[in-house]
């Protein structure tokens, strides 16, 4: 699964995700990617794109839960995303990338690796696979 999230200097957010799904999935199986609030979500606070095992991501409403923790509990993007990835989905099933309206970036995962990259206006750039 591939995905991208972006925020501009005015705080406008967007998310996109695309996938082929799971190897040996049943024909007709729908995964998390096209389910709004599961594998992909954006509102005025953050944009989220998830990857991993779709069934786990749908059950945990990963994308929407990150936004909801920010919206209702006032958590930062980093804390909201970390909580959702570590506490809401089984170990080994999910990773996500997210940005907030104020330019924060986070890329947590509970699998043993995630192909990921990020950059921001301050010149910070990161490309990684493992912790």
């Amino acid at each position, binding site marked *: 699964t591939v995905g991208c999230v972006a*925020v*501009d200097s005015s705080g406008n957010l967007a998310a996109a995700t695309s996938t082929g799904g799971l190897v040996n999935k049943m024909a007709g199986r729908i995964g998390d990617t096209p*389910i709004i609030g599961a594998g*992909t979500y954006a509102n005025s606070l953050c944009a989220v794109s998830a990857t991993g095992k779709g069934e786990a991501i749908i059950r945990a409403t990963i994308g929407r839960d990150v936004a909801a923790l920010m919206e209702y509990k006032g958590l930062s993007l980093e804390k909201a995303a970390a909580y959702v990835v570590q506490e809401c989905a089984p170990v080994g099933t999910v990773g996500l990338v997210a940005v907030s309206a104020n330019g924060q970036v986070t890329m947590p995962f509970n699998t*043993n690796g995630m192909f990921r990259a990020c*950059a921001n206006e301050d010149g910070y750039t990161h490309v990684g696979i493992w912790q």
Partner: protein
Amino acid sequence: MGWAIALHGGAGDIPRSMPPERREPREAALRHCLQIGVDAIKAGRSPLDVVELVVRELEDNPHFNAGRGSVLTSNGTVEMEACVMVGDTKKCGAVSGLTTVKNAVSLARLVMEKTPHIYLGFDGAEQFAKEQGVETLDASHFITPENVDRLKQAKEANKVQIDYTQPIQKVEEEDESASLPNGDSQIG
């Protein structure tokens, strides 16, 4: 406040023993796609344009599980899915069950912008793609030899695999600490 961009190419059981010839092309692709996004956002493109542009590039790279390189169903076919969402309006579009559309993410954006709906799937999504004139290709374009092998392994083990999963071994040979022959992760 400031712009920021993040992207992923899949998660899963990615072994640290992955050999350089498999790791480096993926890292290079991540850097390449990140730079495309950075250049676009610096040029004043909207975040929606940026995420579509970056995901199209990732879809076209056979090292990742989307577009060319999509993993296979139990029938040996591809069924691709994509989604876009805009934060301030919560407008969104999604597609599933695509077999011929070169860049599913762009069709998802068209669903958002050109229909009163959020989500189109299978025959309806393919028909909409034709009506919109998006680029389509024979399904064989999306199928790589590597993914044919992965399906064969998964069928033999009667398992599904996410983006990057280590090759499935027969139960009697399973050893979680064993290093992999090719070091590649075989999940989605």
